[in-house]
């Protein structure tokens, strides 16, 4: 049976269809991807959940600050605590940090520039739902598209992220001032991952890179594994 992957739509999300389309490339026999409205109070039956990019709730106050009050977020916290695979991309990463499901914060880019470009990132751990099928040290070419992508946290948190192997991706050439070149982090168990680059936009040769597929493949595998666990 195909793994069921939900892509959460907040008012102001704008990458949800890209994610569904990219996941669709794995074929309907492997993946059943669809949208989940943020007002949903249950994520029962989903084998993985993606928080896509965009401007949830208009990014009012701070990116992610209001999205964390959406009804679906309570269900998401339980889903994550239960080991469910969760990936936040760009604005989705910001939502996960504001919700306390991932550490740190995403502040304005160094230099106060909105960045829309392609960057190199290195896979720093393969223990996560987004990198399980990648090679350690693999270099990927992925698009970024953000104003607030400059990851920061206090020194003790950074030390813990390093010690617990929770830095998932690092920029090979830091574009935004992120602490320790961090492009993505995960929770202790590795089932919740946030990243600023957009893997869903690097899934077709026409977009110059298909490296995003290597990350999404890992998510599909993790979702498939969860689909096979008897509930």
């Amino acid at each position, binding site marked *: 049976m195909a793994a069921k992957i939900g892509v959460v739509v907040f008012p102001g999300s704008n990458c949800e269809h890209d994610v569904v389309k990219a996941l669709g490339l794995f074929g309907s026999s492997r993946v059943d991807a669809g949208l989940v409205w943020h007002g949903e109070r249950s994520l029962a039956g989903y084998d993985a959940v993606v928080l896509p990019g965009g401007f949830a709730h208009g990014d009012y106050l*701070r990116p992610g*600050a209001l999205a964390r009050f959406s009804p679906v977020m309570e269900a998401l916290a339980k889903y994550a605590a239960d080991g469910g695979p969760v990936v936040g991309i760009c604005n989705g990463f910001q939502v996960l940090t*504001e919700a306390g499901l991932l550490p740190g*914060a995403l*502040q304005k880019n*160094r*230099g*106060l520039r909105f960045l829309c470009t392609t960057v190199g990132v290195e896979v720093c751990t393969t223990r996560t739902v987004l990198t399980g099928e990648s090679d350690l040290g693999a270099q990927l070419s992925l698009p970024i598209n953000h104003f607030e992508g400059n990851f*920061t946290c*206090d020194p003790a948190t950074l030390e813990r992220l390093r010690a617990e192997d929770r830095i998932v991706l690092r920029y090979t050439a830091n574009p935004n001032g992120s602490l320790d070149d961090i492009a993505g982090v995960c929770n202790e168990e590795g089932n919740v991952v946030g990243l600023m680059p957009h893997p869903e936009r690097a899934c077709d040769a026409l977009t110059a890179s298909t490296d995003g597929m290597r990350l999404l493949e890992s998510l599909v595998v993790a979702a498939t594994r969860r689909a096979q666990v008897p509930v």
Partner: protein
Amino acid sequence: MKYEVLVEVRLRSGIADPQGATIERALPALGFEGVDDVHVGKAFRLSIEASDEDGAYARGTEMAQRLLANPVIEDSTVTVIGPVESVSSAAPLTSSAVSTGNAVSTGNGAG
């Protein structure tokens, strides 16, 4: 009783504030010399229902810590301006700095 409360949020000391730095560099171009420690933040004015000004301060502080500021990168200062009815003429009744994170708010924002 409603009290007018001002919550000011700004980046914690040690967190780069490129907007403040840019404005600081721009001011001399207009002839404003001798200005430093320029910081850019947000200000929220709220009318808060409370039994007295201490209660309004406590509620404003909790709002600042739980929503208005992100304690990872921001500090907040809560000031009770006064009862809503007499806001225009009232001087601040209660003002003190509160840190939303572990760091102590520096007051003059050095850094």
